[in-house]
């Protein structure tokens, strides 16, 4: 008969294990909901989505979106003032659309990518990057707008003035003419992807 009321070492360890497994089980049962305070909070995602859509709508209304799509340097076959890779990495492009994006997103802890999707020569959709600042997180939001480019639209210079080179004349533009019979040159989709850094 044991006369000393003293636990074995093994009993102490097993009791700890029982406590810990109870805690782990309770953690598995609880769930993170869309309204919990986290980066995937529904309110934050709504706000980011609405902000991205607002920037695109404003850019489309003032015509800055079309000018940004045609901000192409025909002689060096890239967007103006991009070096090395053919996309911007340090914020928006140096035109009105880029300034709108920077004004909206600088200093808010939210970063963005901008992609341009167009119809290529074999009637497939091709996507190129206009701004790429990293791989978006799992809780990124996207907003997109379609821009129609006509045959008579001109390219824009690095200081945002219109050149007299139309898109049909520009040999090295990234998108081809999809329809020679009508006045439409191509239809591009500009997509802004925003996520919290």
């Amino acid at each position, binding site marked *: 008969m044991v006369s000393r009321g003293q636990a074995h070492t093994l009993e102490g360890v097993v009791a700890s294990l029982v406590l810990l497994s109870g805690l782990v089980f309770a953690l598995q049962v609880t769930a993170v909901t869309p309204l919990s305070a986290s980066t995937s909070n529904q309110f934050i995602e709504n706000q980011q989505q609405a902000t991205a859509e607002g*920037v695109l709508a404003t850019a489309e209304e003032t015509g800055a979106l079309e000018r940004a799509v045609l901000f192409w340097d025909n002689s060096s076959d890239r967007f103006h003032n991009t070096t090395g890779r053919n996309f911007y990495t340090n914020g928006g492009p140096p035109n009105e659309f880029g300034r709108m994006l920077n004004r909206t997103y600088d200093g808010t802890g939210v970063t963005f990518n901008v992609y341009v999707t167009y119809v290529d020569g074999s009637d497939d959709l091709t996507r190129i990057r206009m701004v790429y600042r990293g791989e978006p997180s799992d809780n990124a939001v996207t907003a997109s707008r379609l821009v129609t480019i006509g045959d008579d639209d001109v390219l824009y210079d690095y200081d945002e003035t219109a050149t007299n080179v139309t898109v049909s004349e520009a040999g090295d533009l990234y998108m081809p003419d999809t329809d020679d019979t009508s006045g439409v040159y191509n239809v591009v989709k500009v997509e802004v992807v925003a996520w919290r850094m």
Partner: protein
Amino acid sequence: MTRDRGQTTLDFAVGISVFLLTTVAVVAFVPGMLEPFQTGPQESTVIADRVATQLVEETLVEDGKHYILNGTCTLAFFNASKSDAGCAFDNARGLEERLGVSNSNLNLSIHYDFDSDKVAEPACWNETDGRLVGCGDPDADWQLSENRVPPDTGSVIVGRRVAHLEGRAVEVFVRVW
């Protein structure tokens, strides 16, 4: 002292320490685990989100185009002396009635970075020229903001939207507390 159990004092010390440490850790951890599920400012969050969405998608817009604000209606919204004919609200009523919010405090304001210093300032309206200016500008006549001033203490939920007004991408802020 004779012992007939195969356990030294050291064994006992180790066993009890492990057990007590685990008990204390579990007891300290459980309140932190329950914290996201406590009632917080959830109602204000939803109100800020809905009011901001309603403003830029219905109340102030032109022809149903989301995010494009109608200049006349936006000015009438913030200034009760202007006519609200043809707008989707009645500016003779209070702010809470216009937006359908009953027991929260609201502050709406429009901001824009006029001086390009990466900080958005409150926007004011210049009557003589009919344009948006910063409120520090001497030509500013009245400010595009509405209602009470948010308190310095306590939590204030802010909803932010970007919209087009008079050729600029302005930021619309909704503060709820």
